[in-house]
């Protein structure tokens, strides 16, 4: 059973490594942010599976912290890094 969980975690990790291509390719900042979001969700799943493998309950807390902070990066991104600026509407600056 432990091996099953570990294999699942490995699968998810490989999945994320493939998704890194989106960080490299972009093209817009939003696309890069998306892979960050994917990484966040996947990290939660990886931690849950590692919890399944080891039974250390603290891992659920780590996953919970990730889950509650899931919106943090995106919210900062849309409010600070890429705030809606009517003046810059048609050029999409930081592509």
């Amino acid at each position, binding site marked *: *059973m*432990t*091996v099953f969980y*570990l*294999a699942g*975690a*490995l699968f998810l*990790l*490989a999945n*994320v*490594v493939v998704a*890194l291509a989106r*960080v*490299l390719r*972009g093209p817009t*900042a939003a696309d*890069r*942010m998306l*892979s*960050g979001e994917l*990484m*966040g969700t996947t*990290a939660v799943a*990886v*931690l849950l599976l*590692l*919890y*399944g*493998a*080891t*039974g*250390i*309950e*603290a*891992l659920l*807390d*780590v996953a*919970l*912290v*990730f889950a*509650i*902070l*899931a*919106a*943090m*990066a995106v*919210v*900062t*991104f*849309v*409010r*600070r*890094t*890429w*705030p*809606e600026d009517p003046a*810059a509407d048609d050029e999409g*600056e*930081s*592509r």
Partner: protein
Amino acid sequence: MRAPPSPTASDPGNGDGLMHPVEITFDALLLFSMVVLAWQGVHARNMFRAVVSFIMFGLLTAVAWVRLEAPDIALAEASLGAGLTGALLLATLGRLAPERRGARRPKVVKLSTLPWLTMGLAGTTVLLAVTLTLPAPGLGEAVLAAMPAAGVDSPVTAVLLNFRAWDTLLEIGVMLLAVIALWSLGQDVLASKPRLPAPALPALVRLLFPLFVLSTFYLLWRGGHGPGGAFPAGALLAAGLVLALLAGAQVPERMRGAPLRWALGAGLFAFLVVAVGLMWAVGTFFAYPPQHASILIAIIEIAAGLSIGVMLTALFLGGEPTDIKGGGK
């Protein structure tokens, strides 16, 4: 739960503790992606790509600490890395001039960096060799032997807030100094952007905020007997406060003066009161009597958690809160 804790990288292959091939592959892949992300974070010529890589690196670092069977550090890394560190970098990126924001940096890797790279590799190899010759257990056994007098069940909390509480006191003092230094540089930068976000964002924050508060308390409580404690709790509280600020909340008018300063100083203040109080009551500076250690640690932990949360938020604000733009609603 089910299986006993599996052997990990912390005890490389001693006898029966051999790792399963799946584990080895997992660790290798984790290491590989961390190196790639670290490289991207430092060398990516697009700034935004570098920041996203760094955030992802933080997420994977937490997983790596889990693999090293250090859930305490994993928790701290998760609460800081997934929360405030990324937010700070993204906000900083937003403050750069637009032409630099997504812009390309000058290329850093030149041929002349090759000697440095070789030296770095050589240094790492030497360090690794030295580390492997060190006696393995470190101070772990000494800590475990002293646990009965610690007042808490978690060895990490015992070290942070009892055996080496002096270090933690100084750390909190350093953080406070950082906030003071920042305040002396100028005023907060958030107040200048009062544009209202989409209605979904305040709705999300209104829903999440009580949960942030609750999990801050949860991590403080957890710190008494497991991974948790003032640092991750403070980081989580800060994340909740920053989220509220990002959703359009203002630092309330009546909180800006004395209450804010008290909150910033509460951790250091509690530490000092306990330390000096003990000198007066017991005769030794900052040595808890074992029968009261538990409650004293709890008090310090709450005060420190609050302070760390408010200090990190103040660092995010980037200056003393102003009251120029329309106050809180």
